[in-house]
């Protein structure tokens, strides 16, 4: 028997749905079935492959995989094959290759890394299998190497986090960054965006500490413990995901700090983090919405119907702060 569940009941299926940022394809080039050169098929009877990059062990990945599976079920797609690369990039390449070998007609990929997809793209191109990448981009040509990308703009997330931090500290103070896993695109872009915006808008803010918390709560806690010990004058912490932010909260509590004395801004929008805002420990959270299912299949269907689809679908993420945290709890994942 586990403890009574404490968080709000699961969000209804439509709550927290992704919203496309720019109404479809207003900017940028578009892509049609003819341009891509594929053949039309019926999505319902087709074999569809989904390659997940990381274990379904954090809220983001769980929500992402679930959303794809649920939507497939809803649409009556009987033949969905799901693989998981367990955070090993080589394995993801192999996984996708084996999906192609198994004869999938549509691939949805949540890439672990943006580069290094050459062998997969070649193989998919040879068989004219359209690829939709979700949440991270693949560095290749849309509409020929792959079909399109659906996801957030991590760079933008970093910038928005910086805006929130600047607000919170009124433009000056010392900030620490809890970096994600090294070498990861997400880490790089969320860091660059944040630093760029700080440098540009708030020269009074000094980034005096940046250490990796590897996207994990325990690591976030440990690093923060060291941090507040050796840099007691820190004013703000930018955590590149919610887990590390929550770890930092535990560390601050353990060190006897009051809620809100150190401003924490993070990215993701998990339910615990939104709760953290409501409790006063987090200042703001930039959402990164993982519910790609509906949008992915909608885009695929449009494409198969012969409509033009944009080469990238950037979703509009919202922010959570004290003004909306309590109300949005049901929509957070």
């Amino acid at each position, binding site marked *: 028997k586990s403890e009574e569940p404490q968080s709000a009941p699961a969000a209804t299926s439509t709550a927290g749905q992704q919203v496309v940022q720019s109404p479809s394809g207003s900017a940028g080039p578009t892509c049609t079935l003819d341009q891509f050169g594929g053949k039309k098929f019926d999505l319902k009877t087709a074999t569809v492959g989904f390659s997940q990059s990381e274990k379904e062990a954090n809220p983001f990945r769980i929500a992402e995989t679930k959303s794809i599976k649920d939507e497939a079920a809803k649409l009556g797609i009987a033949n969905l094959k799901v693989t998981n690369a367990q955070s090993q990039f080589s394995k993801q390449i192999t996984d996708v290759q084996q999906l192609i070998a*198994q004869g999938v007609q549509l691939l949805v990929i949540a890439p672990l890394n943006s580069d290094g997809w050459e062998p997969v793209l*070649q193989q998919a191109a040879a068989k004219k299998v359209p690829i939709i990448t979700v949440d991270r981009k693949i560095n290749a040509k849309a509409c020929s190497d792959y079909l399109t990308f659906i996801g957030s703009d991590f760079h933008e997330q970093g910038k928005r986090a910086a805006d929130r931090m600047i607000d919170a500290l009124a433009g000056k103070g010392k900030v620490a960054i809890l970096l994600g896993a090294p070498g990861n695109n997400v880490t790089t872009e969320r860091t660059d965006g944040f630093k760029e915006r700080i440098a540009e808008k708030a020269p009074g803010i000094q980034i005096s500490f940046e250490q990796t918390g590897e996207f994990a709560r325990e690591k976030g806690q440990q690093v923060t413990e060291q941090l507040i010990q050796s840099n007691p004058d820190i004013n703000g912490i930018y955590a590149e995901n919610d887990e590390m932010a929550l770890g930092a909260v535990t560390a601050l509590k353990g060190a006897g700090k009051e809620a809100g004395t150190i401003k924490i801004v993070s990215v993701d929008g998990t339910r615990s983090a939104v709760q953290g805002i409501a409790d006063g420990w987090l200042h703001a959270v930039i959402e990164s919405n993982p519910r790609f299912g509906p949008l992915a299949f909608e885009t695929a269907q449009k494409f198969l119907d012969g409509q033009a689809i944009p080469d990238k679908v950037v979703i509009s993420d919202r922010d959570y702060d004290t003004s909306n945290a309590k109300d949005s709890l049901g929509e957070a994942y």
Partner: protein
Amino acid sequence: MTSIASSRREQVSRVLQQHGALMVLAMLVIVGSLTFDSFATAGNAASVVVSSSFLAVIAIGMTFVIISGGIDLSVGSLFVLGGVLAAYGSQYGLLMALALPLGACGVVGLLQGLVIARTGMAPFIVTLAGLLGVRGLMLAISDEGATTYLVKNPAFASLGQGELLGLTYPVYITAALALVAMVLLQRTGFGQNVYAIGGNEQAAALMGVPVARTKVAVYVMSALLAGLAGALNAARLSSGVTILGIGLELDAIAAVVIGGTLLTGGAGGITGTVAGVLLLGVIQSLINQVGNLTSAFQQVVSGAFLALVVVAQRLLSKAQRLS
């Protein structure tokens, strides 16, 4: 007469010990083909073979190290470093794309080998330091992993992507390396020295085996092969991906040991290792065939498979008389 009979029995069990992995592999393939339609297809087989080839190259080097009584934990990091350097070097042509990773990894292997051979420190710990240090080095040259160098050189890229009879070049390179390694191990003085120092280092020294030199050579070889695997992989992926290779050393060790090579050194061979690598690949492919396992279940299944395979392999070889 007794000795002839007993030696035949021993020969049979020795064959079992050496090819236990091969037999388990055959069993898995048969079961897999009967269970899943899309398993025994040429495409799937090719993907298993192609993706296994990089691990195989590393495992071949690891086989030498383990037979010599050592272990090399740095191969995963060398694999990434090799890839990053190859992608970086490919800007300057095919030659640099190969020379840079091989040179750097060779130097690392040389250092590790020298430290192990000269100071008598445990290989486990020396190469663990190698694992950390080399990954640090890789992060340092790739801007903490943020920079991914792309392979623009078509000659180098085709080394990893070119195909012959449905299989990419790395498969053939791996096969050639395996053959050379087999001859090296079984049919040269160097190979004999490797077995000898793994079997009884002190005795080997007293028998006049150049222990230090052999050890250094073995670690250099392992590092070179890891670097080569990394370079080939970079050619295949057309980029020097920085997030690769974590835990790769454990895969390589598992493959070698499943292949019947004793971790205590002194016995083993390349055929077993290749079978071990393929076994791991097939297990993975079978798990993918099932299609809808959650990531956690996939881990449970591969852990269980691994346990099953080592137990089976062990029981098959238990006929071997214990000394």
